[in-house]
């Protein structure tokens, strides 16, 4: 066996250019496989980190059927008193026209309550977030994000300024820090946002009503999200005539598993395409091995005459095909490592890292070995089956 490997290396090194060109198919295939799958994995882990940083303790509840009895703020505050459930806040958004002196801008107003800041992990830059008292008294106060503050008022520290939303005068009581790390930040970045008391939004809006159709829930410290989810579902079932279809409770982990399934499908898909190029590379190897067998017919004859059995010849050519494959595989893996390093450096601004996973390397190695065996077998068998006298007299 070791002898076969040595002989294979010898005969490959006897024709380096041809061997390299033969390997090229495998090299490209391996690089495609490893790089594509690593890119998908890298992007996935980045998205997952972002989700994790959002906090996995947030639940989103949607009510689709209120059974003739709308869920209102009082229901929410009642549920919030239940020990197992942490914080609950509704959120209704509406596009409004904002005015500050002569500045005009389109702005998204979120009608919500005090716990919203904690649930969504919003950071207050200056001032304060909405308070329960604001909601109770329908006060015309708002909290804006940094972008809105700078775009409208011209500076971030604009506490106490009055702005008008759809013609209603609101006093700015707080400015929120723009959070670039958040999952939804790409969609929100650059957009102007104002948070106003839920009760106030109902007054200024034409569409928002006292009925709450969706709200966010965050588990209290030390309570597992699943426990909260179970308790919440119990409460909702009670409230909504035990109709499971009337509402839905989704958590971040559900989102995470969705992303997982999407990216794993993507990885399989891209990996599959790369695998096709590996198979094409394998066919290239088979082709060259067939040429090699023909070229070395005489050598096969000599080897047979001096005592090599069919098995020995088969093994020799099979090992040669496998060695070409594995060399190509090794070069491909090193190459893709280099390319991944390069990509990581180029996109370093995006804070993404693309690591080569051990799993995909193992898959690549295994697949290359398989290709070597599958595509080496036919030429090797052809060599092994040659009759010694025909082979000996070939070309001489």
């Amino acid at each position, binding site marked *: 066996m070791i002898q076969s490997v040595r002989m294979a290396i*010898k005969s490959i090194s006897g024709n380096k250019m041809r061997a390299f060109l033969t390997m090229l198919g495998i090299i490209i295939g391996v690089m495609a496989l490893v790089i594509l799958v690593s890119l998908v994995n890298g992007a996935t882990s980045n998205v997952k980190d972002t989700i994790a940083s959002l906090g996995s303790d947030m639940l989103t509840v949607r009510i689709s059927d209120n059974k003739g009895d709308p869920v209102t703020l009082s229901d929410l505050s009642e549920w919030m008193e239940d020990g197992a459930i942490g914080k609950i806040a509704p959120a209704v958004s509406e596009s409004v026209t904002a005015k500050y002196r002569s500045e005009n801008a389109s702005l998204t107003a979120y009608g919500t309550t005090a716990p919203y800041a904690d649930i969504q992990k919003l950071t207050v830059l200056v001032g304060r977030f909405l308070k329960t008292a604001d909601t109770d008294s329908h006060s015309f106060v708002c909290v804006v994000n940094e972008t809105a503050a700078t775009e409208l008022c011209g500076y971030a520290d604009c506490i106490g300024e009055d702005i008008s939303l759809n013609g209603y005068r609101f006093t700015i009581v707080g400015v929120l820090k723009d959070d670039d790390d958040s999952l939804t930040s790409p969609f929100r970045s650059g957009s102007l946002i104002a948070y106003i008391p839920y009760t106030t939004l109902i007054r200024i809006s034409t569409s928002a009503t006292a009925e709450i159709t969706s709200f966010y829930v965050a588990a209290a410290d030390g309570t597992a999200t699943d426990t909260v989810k179970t308790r919440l579902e119990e409460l909702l079932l009670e409230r909504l005539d035990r109709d499971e279809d009337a509402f839905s409770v989704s958590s971040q982990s559900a989102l995470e598993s969705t992303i997982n399934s999407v990216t794993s499908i993507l990885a399989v898909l891209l990996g599959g395409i790369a695998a096709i190029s590996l198979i094409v590379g394998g066919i290239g190897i088979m082709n060259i091995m067939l040429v090699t067998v023909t070229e070395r017919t005489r050598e096969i004859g000599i080897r047979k005459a001096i005592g090599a*059995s069919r098995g020995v010849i088969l093994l020799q050519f099979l090992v040669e095909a496998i060695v070409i494959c594995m060399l190509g595989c090794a070069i491909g893996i090193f190459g893709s490592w280099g390319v991944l390093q390069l990509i990581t450096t180029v996109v370093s601004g995006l804070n993404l890292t693309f690591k080569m996973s051990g799993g995909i390397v193992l898959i690549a190695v295994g697949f290359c070995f398989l290709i070597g065996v599958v595509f080496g077998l036919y030429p090797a068998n052809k060599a092994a089956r040659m009759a010694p006298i025909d082979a*000996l007299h070939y070309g001489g």
Partner: protein
Amino acid sequence: MIVLKEICKTYQVGEEIVKALDHASLHIKAGEFVSIIGPSGSGKSTMMNIIGCLDTADSGEYLLDGTPIEDYTERELARVRSLKIGFVFQSFNLIPQLTAYENVELPLIYQRVKKSERKRRVNDALERVQLLGRMHHLPSELSGGQQQRVAIARAIAAQPALILADEPTGNLDSHTGQEIMGIFHELHAAGNTIVLITHDPSVAKQAERAIHILDGRVSEVAL
């Protein structure tokens, strides 16, 4: 040692059926130095292929070392070639990528001889053909006579019962040819059985006994 009884072998060349061997029989004893002589097309190459277990006869009986081999499978024939027969060819038939040493070592690898033992036997064989100094040369770096000596070393390293030489001097000038014949004489003197196939009566004469083949039929000629 070698007993051929009524061996027949036909080939089809295009439309024509060629009777290469026609009820050929012969007997060679262990330790003999026998030449098989005949003009080209006489069937002597077929004879050598059959004696060398490279090919099997259509009919007849072949006993090598007392064992009939006509029913052997490919695998068994390969084993017989590996253990019992050492070939020396007209065109040397060394493997060009391998050094002299590696060429001589090859049949021992096929015999699964251990590495230390291989080294000893390869060195012995190369010493007998006086090529120890050139053992790390490739065949392309050796002269014709030297290549043939490597081929002989390869044949004797395997310690076969029979050395089968097919026109071993055919590609060499007469002086080098004589040197090679000298080696065969030494091997014969050391007790090896040698069958030499040639078309050259002056080479055939150097054997103890010559067997003549003409149109696939065997006849002994006195030397």
